[in-house]
């Protein structure tokens, strides 16, 4: 049996499904500030309702937007020192065109000289690195550095300098989180540096969250592996994920895509997930959430890690509405507990959900709602809110629709009931599956295992085919060791990236495999 947990901006859900994928129980809690209190309560309730012993749970599957949210609301981010290992200072400064609030966390930049070019080590100049490194190590404490990011030119080919520098820092500061760029992305220095820097500034947030989550699972007597979903929709063990926040930053969204496909039994569809603080729109193609191909961006920062390909609206059911001089606006702030703050529940805040309730009284069913409380709202104003949501949502869906085939739209998430009957009435193919409110937690339970190799190889003594075969074997072995069943394993992508315009037998290979538990 599996325990799936989703920590969203508003709610934390837990579900238990059996080996056949049947839902046994579910529970919902408001997301707590420390995230773990709600996880404990939701998981505990789900276990009790299913009436099963925690020992029977074979795996816990977690998805969360917690790490992603930290980028929008910094404060818990880590002051990071960047170590560039390059031939000479580059014309392009680190963090170029980053949002200022994030750039502020790149506290120090050190430039060490690399001994490598694309053909390998040039000569031994280790002494030079020694001097610069000593200076830097002395400054880590005085500058209050909380995280280190090491980016070496050509590290996807030769990782030894990044490893060596990490080793030396670890000797003195064993607990300092260290990101090495060759573990984050492939060739493309700047995109790899951006992704690695984001990983480094997030290292404290994820570490704290995952350590306390692990503690909670232990407290719940769950003696099984704990997994977090990655950006591409596959799983990573929590112990490992702690070092790679950037690779798991999209876990919430991909779980919702997978859950929606599972619930609606549509493996090609557009998914609209209506949450409390955002509305996310993504696409499932052939049973897998679509990820970006090629370079992608996080907060408009170019990175070379794969991200879920989604469109987002920066508001959800709990967003506050303002009326300033007759201009109706959906604000960026949200009601943290709509059942206390929302007008229809007797609170003082005018939310997006209140606006829907005012115009369509049937749109949301809750015994605690008293529609008379909405009397003071103007129906016209509320209609304007709905019109904005409707227009923006339809525009995003249109962007994801294929030109020659109309994909069905699956609407899920806690806020989905109020949209389905009202905004989507004109769409032909709309599904609103039962279980829409626990879609993410459910999706997490069905995520596959994955293994990937993305490296640059020299073809000196081998043919390309030999290298590919070898890499595939490594991937299969890795999937087996992670617990995939042998007959479920398949190689899902083999991509070659030659070094254009260069005569030489060097190639970048990216090979990926998937397997089911």
């Amino acid at each position, binding site marked *: 049996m599996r325990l799936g947990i989703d920590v969203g901006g508003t709610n934390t859900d837990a579900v238990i499904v059996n080996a056949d994928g049947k839902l046994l129980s579910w529970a919902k809690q408001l997301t707590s500030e420390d995230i773990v209190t709600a996880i404990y309560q939701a998981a505990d309730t789900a276990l009790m309702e299913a009436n099963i012993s925690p020992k029977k749970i074979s795996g816990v599957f977690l998805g969360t937007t917690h790490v992603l949210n930290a980028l929008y609301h910094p404060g818990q981010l880590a002051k990071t020192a960047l170590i*560039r290992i*390059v*031939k*000479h*200072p*580059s*014309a*392009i*400064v680190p963090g*170029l*065109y980053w949002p200022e609030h994030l750039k502020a966390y790149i506290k120090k930049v050190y430039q060490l000289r690399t001994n490598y*070019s*694309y*053909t390998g080590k040039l000569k031994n100049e280790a002494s030079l690195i020694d001097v610069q490194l000593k200076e830097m190590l002395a400054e880590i404490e005085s500058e209050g550095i909380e995280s280190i990011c090491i980016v070496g*030119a*050509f590290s996807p080919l030769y990782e030894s300098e990044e490893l060596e520098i990490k080793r030396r820092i670890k000797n003195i500061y064993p607990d300092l989180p260290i990101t090495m760029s060759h573990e984050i992305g492939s*060739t*493309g*220095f*700047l995109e790899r540096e951006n992704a690695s820097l984001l990983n480094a500034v997030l290292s404290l947030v994820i570490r704290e969250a995952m350590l306390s989550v692990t503690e909670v699972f232990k407290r719940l007597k769950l003696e099984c592996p704990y997994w977090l979903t990655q950006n591409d929709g596959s799983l990573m063990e929590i112990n490992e994920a702690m070092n790679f926040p950037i690779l798991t930053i999209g876990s919430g969204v991909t779980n919702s895509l997978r859950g929606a496909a599972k619930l609606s039994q549509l493996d090609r569809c557009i998914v609209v997930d209506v949450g409390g603080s955002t509305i996310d729109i993504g696409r499932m*193609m052939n049973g897998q959430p679509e990820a970006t*191909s*090629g*370079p992608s961006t996080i907060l408009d920062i*170019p990175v070379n890690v794969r991200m879920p390909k989604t469109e987002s609206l920066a508001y959800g059911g709990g967003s506050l509405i303002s009326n300033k001089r007759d201009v109706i606006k959906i604000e960026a702030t949200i009601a943290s507990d709509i059942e206390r703050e929302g007008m229809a529940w007797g609170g003082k805040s005018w939310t997006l959900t209140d606006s829907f309730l005012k115009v369509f009284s049937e749109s949301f069913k809750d015994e605690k709602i008293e529609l008379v409380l909405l009397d003071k709202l103007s129906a016209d104003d509320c209609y304007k809110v709905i019109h904005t949501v409707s227009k923006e949502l339809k*525009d995003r869906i*249109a*962007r994801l629709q*294929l*030109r*020659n085939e109309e994909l069905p739209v699956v609407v899920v998430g806690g806020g989905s009931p109020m949209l389905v009957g009202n905004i989507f009435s004109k769409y032909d193919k709309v599904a609103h599956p039962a279980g829409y409110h626990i879609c993410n937690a459910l999706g997490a339970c069905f995520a596959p295992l994955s293994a990937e190799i993305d490296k640059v190889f020299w*073809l000196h003594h081998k043919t*390309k085919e030999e290298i590919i075969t070898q890499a595939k074997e490594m991937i299969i072995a890795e999937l087996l060791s992670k617990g995939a069943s042998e007959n479920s394993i398949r190689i899902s*992508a083999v*991509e*070659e*990236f*030659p*070094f*254009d*315009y*260069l*005569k*030489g*037998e*060097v*190639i*970048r290979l990216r090979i990926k495999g998937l397997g089911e538990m």
Partner: protein
Amino acid sequence: MRKIGKQEIEDMAVGAALLGTGGGGDPYIGKLMALQAIEEYGEVTLLEVDEVPDDALVVPSSMMGAPTVMLEKAPSGEEAISAFKQLEEYLGKKIFGTFPIEAGGVNSMLPFALAARLGLPVIDVDGMGRAFPELQMVTFYLDGISATPAIIADEKGNTALLSTIDNVWTERIARAATIQMGGSVMNAMYSMNGKNLKDSGITNILKLEEEIGKSIRLAKENNVNPIEKVLKTVGGFELFKGKVSDINRKTETGFARGVATFEGLYENKGETLQLRFQNEHLIAQTENRLLCVTPDLIAVLDAETGLPITTEGIRYGARCVVIGIPCHPKWRTEKGIATVGPKYFGYEVDYVPVEDLAKKGVTL
């Protein structure tokens, strides 16, 4: 004369990726270098070719080698300056202005980074009207302008002065040196005077790049079909709608040779397109129709966004529209076709202009 700021650079980069016809390296790093240089040193002056005195010394600034390697080195910008300074010293004359050697890919952007730093104007002209892989594949070569004296410079501080008997030898020697110099170098070659530039260059090419980028950007904002807009801007033809069903790359020769296969959609349903490339896209053909041949331009655009896709970026399952654009008339001469036509790249196909192919179709 006008000033080039950040928005112009952003638009030009999109146009450059399209005119790169799949190759030339992603303009992204060049764009960043240009943007940062403009931020630090101010906007760059763009001159029409008519504004250049006939006797002025003009030199294109470009990189040579593997863009993948260049991306890793994170260039300092000093390499290009050092190449220019050395050439000025050798020729004993100040350089008046610079321009891109090719309109496609990373080389379209690098002159702006250099020009901002040195306070030089960029001239709205190039030597290809697109991107090509070898040094002699420029319209200057067709008119007998020598690539040398040429300087190539690496990031370590090495420079080399080349003096060769012809431009094909420049290509051979420079490429061999590039490998020793770390896989990518900055060049100052094809120095010429303003008169030569006016006669032999392809003018207003940066303006075209900018218009392409702008039309794709505005199409997105106004929710209209970007591909129609692009075709109108470049005077091109839609060749094929389809999705990538196979991508086969070979690297034995060091050049990214390969074939991408597209399965037809809509009016092309039932057909398959084979796109042959050697860094740049060179030939597009279906089972029984020839659609477009080098030196005419073949670009692969994302069916949804209209944004150009490089050969590296072609992914299985991606929905694309393949378009063809007539090359500059300078390439449609006997020497032009011999230099960059299908036979030079090893294909036993005769060159037929894309507009003729589009009209009647040539059965294979």
